[in-house]
């Protein structure tokens, strides 16, 4: 059995017994399989938290959820090892999730949430000790000052349903920058740049510190990872680390054997009933756009087939692309929702999570085109490319020169922002989602809970709940088929012999549809 030795020296003795601040990596020997298993256990906790957050759980529910997740996954038969498991798993995942901006963001958010609820479960003495650890040595507001703002502090307390403060309530006066979430929720009184934070909201201060510390630490870890660790550990830790971030802890949808293939002619029908939006996306994108009448002409053109040559080319490309993706260790299902959401579709790409990308990317370019059908068709095809142009926020841009290089006779005229939200609404409407449900879905989209938006869509379309949430396009499909079969609404599933699954990647599917 291999042994992992940490080269960093440090001690964990000065850390509060139940809630470490993860200031330094432990000087512990860790068995290689513990390295991975601990990490997976912690990952289950973090994924559970992520689910809870995206489902919009209330703080009390989250508190219970975190406690349960922690108890279920972070136990150790040896009590004295519990704290080590906590610290080791954190540092392993820190390594795993330091490697890209997107990974860091997710990890930071989940670890911070975990820390928040664990902090809330601590007794007040331990909480104060932790504040001390963070050097949060704010002076409490003195009684004279308290009297002068007592009324207004009471008003804040009433506005958020908290008990009225009295002379015994401790308030800290801190720069508003340090309690962004209390500012955001109008949970504190703010005067001349200072927020008056009552003791029972101090968790926010601590969490902000934790978050900012961890955020910096992740960037440093990333540097270490790219400069030394990845190379040094290339035969041992690196494969584990690289596999862990993409590991998808749900069921495996990558094994085709159990399922019947769907013939292409059935896809239309299945698509209408059981495809998630990301797989219908292509057609909707063409027709769902809210175009001005002047542009109505193009609408029909968008959804027309492109030439066979183009089709073959793209089709072949996606096959190659898929095979190129094969062979990674635990990367079972590269196109789980998490992965789709975090990928940014490039120019002309058809994939990506529509809930996310509808929101950000659509722009329209209008070409003045010369006469002649062939050119027009090509240009229409290519005008799709130009949907992904720069906005004030994003620099993704296809310059007019690039377009001009392709088509000398195309004359670039206008670049105009369309409200992309309308497209998503239109697409959902086409799926038969009720107006009311569309609003709920849009709400989730705006709050960036894309998977939850998809789950709500599923629930609306199938008129049935989906407690597990949607985590994978194929899961959407198979759950949909299960429901439809049980309802006997569409006997398609039966025709195809029970369970059906599309074991295709998004590209492939989209191309077949084309």
């Amino acid at each position, binding site marked *: 059995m291999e042994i992992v030795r940490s080269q960093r020296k440090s001690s964990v003795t000065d850390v509060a017994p139940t809630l470490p601040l993860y200031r330094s990596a432990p000087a512990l020997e860790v068995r290689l399989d513990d390295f991975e298993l601990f990490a997976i256990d912690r990952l289950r906790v973090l994924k559970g938290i992520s689910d809870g957050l995206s489902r919009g759980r209330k703080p009390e529910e989250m508190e219970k959820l975190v406690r349960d997740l922690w108890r279920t996954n972070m136990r150790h038969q040896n009590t004295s090892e519990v704290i080590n498991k906590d610290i080791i798993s954190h540092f392993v995942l820190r390594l795993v999730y330091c490697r890209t*901006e997107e990974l860091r963001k997710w990890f930071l958010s989940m670890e911070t949430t975990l820390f928040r609820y664990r902090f809330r479960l601590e007794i007040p003495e331990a909480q104060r000790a932790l504040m001390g650890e963070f050097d949060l040595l704010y002076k409490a507001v003195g009684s004279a000052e308290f009297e002068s703002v007592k009324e*207004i502090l009471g*008003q*804040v307390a*009433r*506005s*958020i*349903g908290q008990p009225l403060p009295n002379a015994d309530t401790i308030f800290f006066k801190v720069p*508003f*920058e340090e309690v*962004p*979430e209390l*500012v*955001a*929720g*109008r949970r504190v*009184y*703010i*005067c*001349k*740049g*200072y927020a008056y934070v009552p003791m029972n909201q101090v968790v926010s201060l601590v969490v902000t510190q934790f978050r900012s510390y961890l955020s910096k630490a992740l960037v440093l870890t990333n*540097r270490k990872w*790219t400069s030394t660790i990845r190379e040094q550990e290339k035969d041992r830790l690196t494969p584990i680390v690289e596999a862990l971030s993409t590991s998808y802890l749900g069921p495996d949808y990558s094994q085709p054997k159990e399922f019947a293939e769907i013939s292409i002619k059935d896809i239309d029908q299945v698509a209408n009933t059981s495809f998630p939006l990301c797989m219908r996306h292509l057609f909707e994108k063409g027709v769902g756009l809210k175009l*001005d009448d*002047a*542009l109505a002409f193009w609408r029909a053109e968008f959804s027309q087939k492109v030439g066979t040559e183009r089709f073959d080319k793209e089709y072949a490309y996606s096959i190659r692309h898929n095979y190129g993706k094969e062979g990674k260790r635990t990367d079972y299902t590269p196109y789980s929702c998490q992965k789709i959401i975090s990928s940014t579709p490039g120019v002309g790409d058809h994939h990506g999570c529509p809930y996310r990308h509808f929101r950000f990317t659509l722009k329209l370019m*209008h070409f003045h085109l010369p006469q002649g059908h062939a050119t027009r068709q090509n240009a229409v095809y290519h005008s799709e490319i130009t949907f992904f142009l*720069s906005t*004030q*926020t994003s*620099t993704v841009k296809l310059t*007019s*020169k690039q377009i*001009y290089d392709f088509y000398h006779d195309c*004359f*670039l*005229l*206008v*670049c*105009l922002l369309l409200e992309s939200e309308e497209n998503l609404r239109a697409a959902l409407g086409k799926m038969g989602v009720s*107006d*009311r449900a569309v*609003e709920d879905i*849009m*709400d989730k989209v*705006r*709050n960036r809970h894309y998977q939850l938006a998809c789950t709500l869509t599923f629930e609306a379309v199938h008129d049935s709940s989906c407690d597990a949430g949607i985590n994978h396009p194929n899961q959407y499909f198979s759950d949909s088929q299960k429901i439809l079969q049980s309802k006997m609404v569409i006997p398609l599933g039966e025709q195809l012999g029970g369970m059906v699954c599309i074991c295709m990647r998004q590209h492939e599917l989209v191309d077949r549809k084309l």
Partner: protein
Amino acid sequence: MTKEKVEDGNDDMLIDGEPEQRQGNAIPEGFNANYLKVYYGKLFPHADIFKWISYGNDGKHPACDQSYFGRREFSFTLDNDIYVRFQSFNSAAELENSIKEKCPFKIDIGAVYSVDPAKRHAYAQAGDNVFTPVERELVFDIDMSDYDDVRYCCSGADVCLDCWPLMTIAVKVINTALRDDFGFNHILWVYSGRRGVHCWVCDGRARRLTNEQRAAIVDYFRVYKVGNENSHKKVSLMGHALHPFLARSYTEVLRAFFEEKLLCSQKIFATEERFEKILKMIPDDSITSELWGRWQESKRSSISKEDLNVVRWEQLKHMLQSGKQKVQGLRRCVEEIVFSYTYPRLDTEVSKHMNHLLKAPFCVHPKTGAGCFSMLLNDFLSSLPGRVCVPIDPDQCEEFDPTTVPTLSKLLEELNMGGLRADIDFDWDKTSLGKSVRFFRSSFLQPLLKSCKEEMESSYNAKLQHSKNSISW
């Protein structure tokens, strides 16, 4: 692309004026590159913009960061709708020359980056994200078109004196909160040139806010439920009391503007369609049906001398606030209605991210007459006057009249008229822009630079002290 270059050499005719050709001094309304050239050449306050954006770093003080201005992103929109981001300039002269040469239809100001934004690609190869925004004014963008469901006088890009008070409210509410709550002092309000206002908070503390902190401030200001258009209640005020910020905004600004201005000017209760929208915000069927019935009646026999809107509003308030209505939610309803019709609506994305761009003050909003744009854009643009983005005095914002803000052609006319006066040093002083430039300097720029200097001074001294101490130790 193959866009014709702007014809040069026409601009002097506007200055020297050839009256026999020009029919007096009237310059045709409109917007074209030649007008703009004169504007940038003679009127645009390049030096003031440079001074502002330098935040005191253009001085000789040893604490000055000489690279500061050069790390600021500028973005130009050129006349063929080409958008050039990540421009940077190392001096006032460079900035001015580039503006005069390129004659951008729009100038946007972005963030201060860690490295020169024009050279970002060179740094990108070094791996890591060296190129990242490090400073940015806290900015707000409020656009009248976001208020279309609560104004009946105009819609979309149009504004008039009946709906402009909505902007006045926004300036008052946000300005007071920025000063009193967040403690900011250097705040610039600017007419956005068409249908709204921009706000630049320039205190050092504001410029150094993280995206998260910016988002927190935006949320502090937000009372609207995220665009839930199906819900009749746009505003949801929960809890047993209003947060002090909301309470103050309500009693000091919103209520008065609603009752004294908008209620009658927008005729908020005048038609069935309008009052139904309000009744839907009341979650008590017995009250809504009673009011609805009464107002249906009174429609036929309106002999009252008092304004119909006022009468109905008073009736509604009476119903909701009378002793019988102990239910908290119903009492809150009056406030919710007022908030719905008056409270500022921010374009939140602009404020939340440091790397967002915002149009520079003193830009001119382009108006085009030429047929080179699509129908869509042309319609859109031709509905807008080409007005200068002039500063607004937040303390006098009631006086601000967007319809009298100078247009490009008006300024050129004035310039022609005053062209021969030798007693005036600056060209802009010959025009109605002078007032705006003077206001920009005296109320914003000078106090800002003074405090920049002080801040620089004190941080420098602290550093000196620190290094002294470390030596003596």
